[in-house]
């Protein structure tokens, strides 16, 4: 397969995504709610796939199969538990309540929603700042993934910087033009494409090697421990830590959290909720089993190489490998484009606008719209430039971001469901858990594991404890509006 044909497939795919973005552009009106939330009108298929495609990233196609290759396919269980069940429950507990509040009070970001309830611009800014801190490395991770994928596919003919740059440029183009609606539409295409591509890839591989029975038999001969549940790597604490941290982290990721505001109706939320576990199984089983089986099929993977492209190159024709790589890039783009948009909305609404209003400058709709788009360009370009100098491994970066976001989840849940939560309480919970997790990650003073449990989980518990304890010993500030989150009938005394 020639280089130009491979490139043709990849570029053709990018152009298709761009065209879809452009057709969505014709429907946009120039308001922030439309740019960020498609005017809260997303239907079931689009919401489901856009959230799904957003969740999945370079990880599903590269780091995940790599782990399955090196350690066995137990990752499927962790992913199923975190994304299929824990996240689905949070979809209801956090998502539905957020959606109701968003409908009622026009919230666009999490910080806005909490800042309003607790009467605190500072809290609003804090949540935005913490979110952007973790979002940035994760966007970078996607670019690293895209650049590496293209480099592997073309045997180095497209260097890393050119591949990552190409993807970044395309994303900027359609995010800036079409906003949430364009993203949701392209995500739907990308999500469907990923599902189909993964299944075809698995079936193709199995046809070549003689079915799942012989593939698993080969794996058993090569590494019997991979077929048995559990190992030194997959301990119960490790699996549960991952599932909890990533499951809760996902719900606080700006691009996922913001989708809670974008649903068109309650029915849309209900249907997506019920379909969630099935969708997870449909994607994770084939993509991670390919990685696991590769171990028994004598596919040699260099220490920092990715399994999936290597397996495909060995067992399927070049055009098909190129198609799946395009699918993987779809996964990365559909995560990054949403992250760019959400990152930009957190910045403009929760940091820039309050500051501008504070300095008594008027921020018109049109100006906010412009700043949002400029924010997308700056954010994407900066992440790309940093990714050029800091290609740390995907997993480390991604894991840090998920755990970082997970620290926000329990204080937010407390705020949503526990009446006595005070401004000081939620502030203390967020600050303490972030400080703890950051120190565990970047210093040696705070250990990274506690009897097998990760610092991410311990930090979450600390954050909840701090929120509750400080709320109990403080009284609500005068500007707090608890009634916003609770039925007035039940809180008649307030």
């Amino acid at each position: 397969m020639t280089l130009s044909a491979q490139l043709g497939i990849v570029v053709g795919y990018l152009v298709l995504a761009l065209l879809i973005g452009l057709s969505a552009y014709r429907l946009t009106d120039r308001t922030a709610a439309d740019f960020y939330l498609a005017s809260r009108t997303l239907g079931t298929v689009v919401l489901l796939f856009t959230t799904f495609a957003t969740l999945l990233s370079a990880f599903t196609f590269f780091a995940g199969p790599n782990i399955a290759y090196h350690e066995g396919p137990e990752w499927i269980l962790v992913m199923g538990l975190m994304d299929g069940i824990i996240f689905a429950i949070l979809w209801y507990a956090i998502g539905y309540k957020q959606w109701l509040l968003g409908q009622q009070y026009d919230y666009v970001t999490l910080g806005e929603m909490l800042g309003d309830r607790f009467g605190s611009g500072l809290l609003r800014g804090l949540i935005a700042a913490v979110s952007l801190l973790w979002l940035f490395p994760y966007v970078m991770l996607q670019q690293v993934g895209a650049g590496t994928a293209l480099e592997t596919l073309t045997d180095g003919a497209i260097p890393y910087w050119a591949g990552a740059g190409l993807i970044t440029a395309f994303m900027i183009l359609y995010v800036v033009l079409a906003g949430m609606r364009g993203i949701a539409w392209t995500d739907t295409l990308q999500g469907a494409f990923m599902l189909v591509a993964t299944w075809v890839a698995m079936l193709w591989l199995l046809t070549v090697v003689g079915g799942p029975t012989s593939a698993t038999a080969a794996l058993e001969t090569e590494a019997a421990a991979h077929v048995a549940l559990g190992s030194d790597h997959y301990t119960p604490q490790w699996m549960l830590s991952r599932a909890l941290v990533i499951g809760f982290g996902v719900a606080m990721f700006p691009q996922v959290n913001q989708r809670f505001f974008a649903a068109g109706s309650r029915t849309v939320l209900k249907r997506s909720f019920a379909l969630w576990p099935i969708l997870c199984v449909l994607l994770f089983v084939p993509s991670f089993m390919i990685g696991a089986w590769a171990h028994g099929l004598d596919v040699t993977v260099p220490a920092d190489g990715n399994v999936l492209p290597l397996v495909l190159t060995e067992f399927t024709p070049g055009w098909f490998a190129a198609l799946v790589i395009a699918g993987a890039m779809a996964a990365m783009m559909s995560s990054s484009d949403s992250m760019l948009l959400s990152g930009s909305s957190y910045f403009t609404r929760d940091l820039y606008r309050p500051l501008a209003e504070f300095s008594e400058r008027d921020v018109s709709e049109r100006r906010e719209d412009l700043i949002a788009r400029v924010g997308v360009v700056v954010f994407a370009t900066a992440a790309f430039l940093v990714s050029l100098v800091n290609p740390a491994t995907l997993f480390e970066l991604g894991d840090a971001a998920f755990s970082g976001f997970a620290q926000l989840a329990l204080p937010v849940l407390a705020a949503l469901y526990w009446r006595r939560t005070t401004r000081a309480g939620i502030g203390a919970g967020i600050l303490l858990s972030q400080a703890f997790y950051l120190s565990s990650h970047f210093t040696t003073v705070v250990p990274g594991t506690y009897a097998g449990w990760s610092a991410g989980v311990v930090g979450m518990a600390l954050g909840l404890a701090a929120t509750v304890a400080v709320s109990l010993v403080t009284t609500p500030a005068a500007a707090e509006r608890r009634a916003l989150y609770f039925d007035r009938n039940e809180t008649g005394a307030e």
Partner: protein
Amino acid sequence: MGSLELAGWITVGVVLCALAIPWFLWGNSTVVAGLPVWLWWHVGWMGLASVVFWYFARHAWGLGIGIDPGPNSSPGPDPEPKPEQKSKPKPADAELESERRGEPP
């Protein structure tokens, strides 16, 4: 619907989480139809979770949320209008519209 119902559903949720990974098959390496038996359990469990979620969405949706969603969660009069809030019309109509389109009665 009382706190008993809520407690019941919370229990269901915890059980769904607890057994998504078949701990009782720890160390088991039986292969059935080309896949480890623990993976089949997981696939079946996720299917079950989907059915349970579907049942919950149909019969208990709104439980424990703590705010009255209203007939179509139309905003109604806002008792405490936010000072910075723009007086944009609420998307209640859009919601009604998509509910109508989305679900046959």
